[in-house]
């Protein structure tokens, strides 16, 4: 029985506009549409908003971008209660600790798709340069019509608008003609975050293999088959390709759709984390698939249940990498337990501008293959978020603001 949804009706476009008058054209901006995706709440209600906003003025030293494609990500809501709670240990608790009165979940219930990282926090825009600022010199390296993506710096707007401005051209990265903008739109958060996670894991793996000596094997578990995990799998396959016999990768799939996808990689094991199975069964099956405890977990799940599972699959001295947003929320609950088992929980931040530039080249050259994605009209953002919340979209979902590149 499906949950009843109460869709948010987008504001109607203003039917009657004042005619433009000659004396005021510089003060009367045209309107354009903005779609905002907030942290998904219950059944995705009240998390997708559509507004008409003025087309922003071009900054003198920046540019205005006409947005063509945007990755379906949500903007994390700044919760006033960021303070960590004191945990009290309790014997007999399978989930290791009591947290009295307050859960450790996001302010709103995380949906299956959020647990799976099919929908994750971020900002992903690909489009064309529509205007350059008045102070921009001709030799700046950019021209009107260039296809670009935007590195998600601190000042990005809260939603995806048809037009947006960037105050510093350094945050624009040109996209080669061979790459579709819908693929490019996946890079700024999903691929970049996955890449930075793999980089962090890579450093740890190298240190581990050096310490253990020749013929040793390092085991990596990637949790989830949402967009982040799919990128991580591909990026890991690329980065560990020169250690192919010494690194094993296992995907803990939360959906059976991911199984066939993950099988694309011959060297990847797959274990299904069916939510309806007992935790101990899942651990047993993961141990079987990984042939014992693993050394590194890349966990894009967002719940303490997922992190708890990851820690149980992790050997002594192991490291689990989690998204910064998740780490900030769950570390108070898990840090003592991890310490007892000499395990580390490391938050991973979004990657750097330089990493994003490198990523563009790797994907454009075909060295890293993007995960499957589906393009939807931006008008369908609400429906797209519903599907993502229930992990019904294979790979990534991309919103398109214009019919063609």
């Amino acid at each position, binding site marked *: 029985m499906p949950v009843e949804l109460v869709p948010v009706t987008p504001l109607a476009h203003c039917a009657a506009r004042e005619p433009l008058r000659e004396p005021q054209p510089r003060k009367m901006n045209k309107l354009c549409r903005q779609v905002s995706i907030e942290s998904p709440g219950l059944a995705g209600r009240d998390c997708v908003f559509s507004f008409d906003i003025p087309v922003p003025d071009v900054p003198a030293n920046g540019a205005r971008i006409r947005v063509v494609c945007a990755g379906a990500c949500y903007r994390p809501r700044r919760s006033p209660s960021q303070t960590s709670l004191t945990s009290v240990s*309790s014997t*007999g*608790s399978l989930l290791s600790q009591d947290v009295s009165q307050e859960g450790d979940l996001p302010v709103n219930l995380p949906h299956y798709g959020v647990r799976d990282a099919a929908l994750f926090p971020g900002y992903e825009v690909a489009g064309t340069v529509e205007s350059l600022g008045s102070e921009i010199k001709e030799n700046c390296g950019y021209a009107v019509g260039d296809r670009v993506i935007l590195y998600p710096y601190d000042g990005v707007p809260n939603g995806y608008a048809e037009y947006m401005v960037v105050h510093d051209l350094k945050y624009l990265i040109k996209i080669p003609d061979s790459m579709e903008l819908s693929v490019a739109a996946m890079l700024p958060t999903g691929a970049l975050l996955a890449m930075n996670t793999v980089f962090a894991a890579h450093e740890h793996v190298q240190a581990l293999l050096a310490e253990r000596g020749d013929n040793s094997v390092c085991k990596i578990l990637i949790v989830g088959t949402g967009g982040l995990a799919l990128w991580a799998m591909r990026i890991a396959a690329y980065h560990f390709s020169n250690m192919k016999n010494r690194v094993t990768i296992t995907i803990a799939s939360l959906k*059976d759709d991911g199984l066939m996808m993950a099988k694309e990689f011959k060297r990847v094991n797959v274990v299904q984390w069916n939510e309806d199975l007992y935790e101990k069964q899942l651990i047993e099956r993961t141990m079987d698939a990984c042939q014992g405890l693993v050394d590194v977990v890349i966990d894009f799940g967002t719940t303490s249940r997922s992190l708890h599972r990851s820690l149980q699959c992790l050997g002594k001295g192991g490291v689990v990498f989690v998204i910064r947003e998740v780490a900030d929320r769950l570390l108070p609950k898990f840090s003592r337990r991890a310490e007892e088992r000499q395990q580390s929980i490391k938050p991973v931040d979004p990657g750097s501008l330089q990493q994003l530039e490198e990523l563009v080249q790797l994907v454009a050259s075909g060295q890293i293959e993007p995960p499957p994605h589906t393009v939807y009209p931006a008008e369908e953002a609400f429906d797209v978020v519903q599907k993502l919340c229930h992990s019904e979209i294979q790979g990534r979902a991309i919103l398109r603001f214009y019919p063609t590149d």
Partner: protein
Amino acid sequence: MAVNGSKRNIREACKDLVLSDEQLKLVMQRLTEEINKGLSKATHDEAVVKCFTTYVQDLPNGTEKGKFLALDLGGTNFRVLLITLDGNNFDMKSKIYAIPQSLMLGTGKQLFDHIAQCLALFITDLGLDDVILPLGFTFSFPLTQLGLTKGKLVRWTKGFNCSGVVGEDVVALLEEAIARRNDVKIDVCAILNDTTGTLMSCAWKNRNCRIGLIVGTGSNACYVEKTSNVQCVNHESGNYDKPNMLINTEWGAFGEGGVLDFILTEYDHDIDNNSINPRRQIFEKMISGMYMGELTRLVLEKLATDGLLFGGKCPNGLRQRGKFFTKYVSEIESDAKGKYGNCRQVLAELGIRNAVDQDCENVRYVCSVVSRRAAHLSSAGIATLLNKMGEDNVTVGIDGSVYRFHPHFHDLMTEKIGHLQSHKFDLMLSEDGSGRGAALVAAVASRDR
């Protein structure tokens, strides 16, 4: 007073789920009748507890030696195992393979080709391509067994619905899939269900084991019957003249004729009506892990809607069918007395924040009522078999996720079986029954070849 009133109301609301010993003994009486119907040739066809002949007449005796394969198909994952036996020594290698939802609902050929592919991968990885390996096939679905190596699927359960398999010999389907590959050499020596495997695995360790029980995704039991009482034997498939025969009761179907209606609740009817197989597997739906979580959710939803839980506001998470997992029941009941850490974690996952202690206590009570009923009905079944066998010092080998992971199930069963019958017995977790047991059946079958 409000708290006490609330507690009393919760208990009153749950009273239909609490079974008295009188009710349980009536269950036992009716199960005995159904078992006798199933064993008798004259009434077998009309019986709902089919008591299928397994054609397994020997238990392990410690002389088994060699390498044996097992294939364990009983759910959304299946396992392939290689077991090396040498007297009392035992070595095992195994691998788990997933069955995607698309194959669970696809064609039988697709399913068996997938299984054969995984078998071949496993054997090739072990470098045993050229060795003839006896295989025991644990097939945990209702089966009409016509011989040790011949079994026709009666119907699919546990969410499976592959086409072209019902009514077919699943050993032939497997053998055909293996033959289509023409790479590995496998000799299918036996087909059995997980209860038979559970009994065999336990019997290898404990020679007193005579009953196998599964309480997991599904529920079923098998036991050692005198061959003279087994009238439904297909003698065309071989001579079955030894004194004992394992009987696969298929007791999950108990109640299909309405003989359990006197204890069915509105929640049981809801579960049945919304199941993949309405009016089937009634006993199983009251016991097994496939349904326990949902049964609990239905009770909680009603209590919340009736204003007895969560301040009368039923959260959306509690309204969604299939989202209260059976493991939640075990996790909630694993909380120490007066502690609600697991309970709050589960409730948070359902969208219920800041539950007060009394709500947590009430949720735990509901979980305990549902799981206790399951344990007591399982106990009634075992007591029935113990009475029928009429022996002392019988060990019951048990497997299945509910038995393994619920914190109180073993103790609840031990106590209740003692109340319901007077023979001495023991309950023993059967380690790796569905895998090792199948290999042991193959080993015992090979012993006699």
